[in-house]
């Protein structure tokens, strides 16, 4: 029979747009039911089987558009997992106390193939951040901007690395500038303030988790070596500094842009 296969073809195309496998089955069943209902209604109106099927499928709309819309609704919840992995990487990667766990297990050695790489453990952490954020961007971001977000993230993390290697004010400023540029670029393409803030928020979260990791590390070290419970007293200060570097300017700018936009709408 030809008709069921037309429906199957349609469902196949819709299915291909939905990236989260777990959501596919129930969604497709619902759509299939709908097409069958619609087809039966057309048959009751006096159409023959084939016409009814064609018309029912046409009523449903472009399978690619439908699938993409459903894809946007059904997304796996990976954010929590990503943050967890970053925190673990942060704890492993921090080396201020000279006791980086990565170094203990042999990865934190700064000389690789004869080349001296400064703060290798931090670098590993930053690369981990980039990998996780890129995969999240590939899953969640609209297709037209996911690449740009990944690029921006790369530049921001490079700036963070420079700042870690050369802790001087001009490298902190470089990070601020790179963050602002990323915000503007993504905003220009997506025309949405929220999307523009994505890369700066993730870099903020990345740095913050890094600090938390460092502090957990200090805490473990302190506790193990001299039995004290110190370690977290610097977190609020660090949080404030990271906020100024990564988020502050962009939040001000987005507030400015939104207020300007709403004024334009009224005018």
């Amino acid at each position: 029979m030809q008709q069921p296969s037309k429906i199957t073809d349609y469902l196949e195309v819709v299915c291909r747009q939905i990236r989260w496998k777990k959501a596919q089955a129930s969604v497709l069943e619902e759509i299939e039911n709908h097409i069958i209902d619609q087809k039966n209604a057309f048959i009751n109106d006096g159409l023959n089987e084939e016409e009814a099927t064609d018309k029912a499928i046409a009523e449903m709309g472009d399978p690619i558009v439908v699938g993409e819309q459903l894809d946007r609704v059904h997304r796996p919840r990976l954010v929590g997992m990503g943050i967890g992995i970053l925190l673990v990487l942060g704890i492993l990667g921090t080396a201020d106390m000279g006791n980086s766990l990565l170094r203990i297990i042999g990865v934190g050695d700064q000389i690789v193939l004869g080349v001296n790489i400064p703060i290798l453990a931090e670098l590993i952490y930053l690369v981990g951040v980039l990998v996780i954020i890129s995969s999240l961007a590939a899953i969640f971001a609209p297709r037209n901007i996911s690449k740009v977000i990944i690029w921006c993230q790369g530049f921001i993390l490079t700036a963070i690395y420079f700042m870690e290697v050369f802790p001087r004010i001009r490298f902190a400023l470089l990070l601020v500038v790179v963050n602002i540029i990323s915000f503007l670029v993504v905003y220009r393409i997506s025309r949405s303030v929220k999307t523009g803030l994505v890369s700066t928020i993730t870099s903020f979260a990345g740095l913050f988790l890094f600090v938390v990791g460092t502090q957990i590390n200090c805490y473990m070290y302190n506790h193990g070596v001299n039995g004290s419970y110190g370690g977290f007293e610097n977190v609020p200060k660090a949080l404030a500094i990271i906020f100024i570097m990564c988020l502050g300017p962009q939040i001000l700018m987005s507030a400015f842009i939104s207020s300007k936009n709403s004024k334009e709408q009224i005018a």
Partner: protein
Amino acid sequence: MAINKSLLTGSTTILILKLLDEKNMYGYQMIEELRKKSNNTFELKAGTLYPLLHTLEQKDMLTSYEETVDNARVRKYYSITKKGRKHLNEKKEEWETFTAAVNAVLGGAGFATT
């Protein structure tokens, strides 16, 4: 009568919530019901309806359950939640304010006679 699409998109949510406020329904039924109630003005596409239903379900404004009907086909019924009702009332008020304002600008009481 054909109506501009942009007018429709914002109001589809409140139409769906209103339908489900009266009784639980499955997707196809909603489209039929809407067409009947609006004298064929709202030809809601299924391709718009389902993503919207799933979004509303994720926002806890709707819940769904499955029911087997006649020849072993499983239908997905939707019903409105408390949160959905609250949202409906808010949106309804918003809509009334908006349409009243548009009508006032278009010509106040004289609008009905043109």
